[in-house]
């Protein structure tokens, strides 16, 4: 009987302790992502994007589109549905403030050089500062994993992911080899 009372008391204390907890902080929300996207959003998996240093607007836009289904995903749509728009803003803000994650990956210097000149002429008005920043909600691409970028480009080209109009105009005249060079360039930026 005494035992039961003690249990009930303990349960009460703990329950009220839980009730007193503050709402999830941006760190609490972001930590749950880092099992797949790496600590502080620096990914070690070649097909998983780094979120560290990504633009806040790009993250918010991506999450909104994952949630609505406007952007194709495998798992992200299901996860995005678990969060509010305020959560997206908190996550975007958090990851945008993390230091750019520099990936170590094998790239072809000739391709990188070719991509560098192509981006200057074709992409640099939206993908600013060699892809380190983006205009409005344009995502930063610097130092992303090449396989991740290739998957995204393949989805753009197949129509699975919709290109913004301006991007479509620029991408259409380019060959697959040109696009590969561009991706190699962005992957190389540190």
């Amino acid at each position: 009987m005494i035992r039961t009372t003690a249990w009930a008391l303990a349960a009460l204390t703990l329950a009220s302790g839980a009730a007193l907890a503050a709402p999830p902080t941006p760190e609490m929300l972001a930590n749950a992502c880092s099992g797949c996207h790496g600590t502080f959003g620096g990914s070690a998996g070649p097909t998983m994007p780094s979120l560290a240093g990504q633009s806040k607007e790009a993250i918010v836009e991506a999450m909104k589109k994952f949630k609505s289904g406007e952007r194709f995903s495998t798992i992200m749509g299901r996860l995005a549905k678990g969060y509010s728009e305020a959560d997206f803003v908190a996550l975007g803000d958090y990851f945008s403030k993390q230091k750019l994650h520099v990936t170590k990956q094998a790239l072809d210097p000739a391709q990188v050089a070719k991509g560098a000149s192509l981006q200057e002429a074709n992409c640099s008005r939206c993908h600013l500062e060699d892809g380190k920043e983006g205009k409005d909600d344009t995502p930063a691409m610097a130092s992303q994993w090449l396989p991740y970028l290739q998957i995204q480009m393949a989805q753009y080209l197949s129509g699975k992911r919709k290109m913004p109009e301006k991007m479509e105009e620029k991408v259409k005249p380019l060959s697959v080899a040109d696009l590969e060079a561009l991706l190699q360039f962005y992957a190389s930026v540190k």
Partner: protein
Amino acid sequence: MTFDRRNFLKLLGAGSGATLVGCATGTGTGTGAGAGAGGSLAMPKSSGKRVVVIGGGFGGSIAAKYIRMLDASIEVVLVERNRQFVSCPFSNLYIGGALKDMSSLTMGYDQLAANHGVKMVYDSVTAIDTANRTVTGASGTLAYDRLVLAPGIDFRTEELEGYDAATTPLAMPHAWKAGPQTQLLRQQLEAMRDGGTVVISIPPAPFRCPPGPYERASMVAMYLKAHKPRSKIVILDANPDIVSKAGLFRKGWAKHYAGMIDYRGAKRVTAVDVKARSVFVEGLEEVKGEVINVIPPQRAGDIARSAGLVGADKRWCPVNPTTFESTVAKGVHVIGDACVAGAMPKSGYSANSEAKVCATNLVAMMNGRETVEMSGINTCYSYITDKEAVSVAAVYAVKDGAIIAVPNSGGVSPDLSELEAVYASSWLKNILVEMST
């Protein structure tokens, strides 16, 4: 116009050619507190705050790392039995022959220790005194201010008549703790004749990795289809139906392994006969097999039970859903497979997520700060073939004092997918790098 798939898959292969261990070695300084040999439990208590973490798996390693990241004034001692950790996730791919060795599943603790000042002690904890706040192992006794217990699972072998905990797994491997058991099951499959029967017995839920047994059946089927196509798999499931991703496994089996997998629900194995190579459903119905994979019923790791941390069910550890502090003993937090985390499944990713919630609030409590509501995720991939995978995902929050899956979120893949198989390998890479660096 499409990008050549082979192109990036090849690149992916090149990337994963550098093993996780190699990857980790490239990033750290190689020296630091606790690196290398490891300390002992005879370490004197420093004047400052000390947290002891027991178990260096998906939960414990992350708890140790995040506590140090959040408050470097806290001394963190991670006590782990093994010098190398072998991941259960992806171990079914080794069993099916898609992985030629287990190097990509294996990690050490040197970089974690060096990068974050986590003090490693390689020892097996034999006793926890929750009243006096000490842990004891072969190398001594260590005092703690707070304890994080992440012991994983142990087996309720007493529920299997004829099962000897020490010897039966050598004949009928469970392979539910990755390492030599995984290799043994693979060896037995390789040695089996074409036309043999593989029996997989699945315990009643809850158990570690709900989709794991069905992924295992898929991977065994993949191997048999290619090498021993006249063979059969009999699944004896104690549960009435496939516990996780049921529709997707059924679809995958029909698509790739038609006629090979004989799934039998509500067939609880209660006895084994090693000599006869048989198992018995409810002690009566005998099922024979050349290879018998008995996954025994489970409970929290033995140390949790001997420390009196399991609940009324005598199996699992009840915890506060915000702090993961035991509701049985103060100052002890239990995470991962051993705890009762409401709607969160017993998975590696759940343990990773729970560890961060626990670390955040443990540090808050030690510093007299307000705790923060939990937010967690589980993502879990299962391979149907070496090229097609499926996933389940969910977001978790606390409601009315319990962890629930956020309504209208999460769920399983719409179909089998090659892209998910590609993402799954990055999942493994990221989660192991996060644990080991």
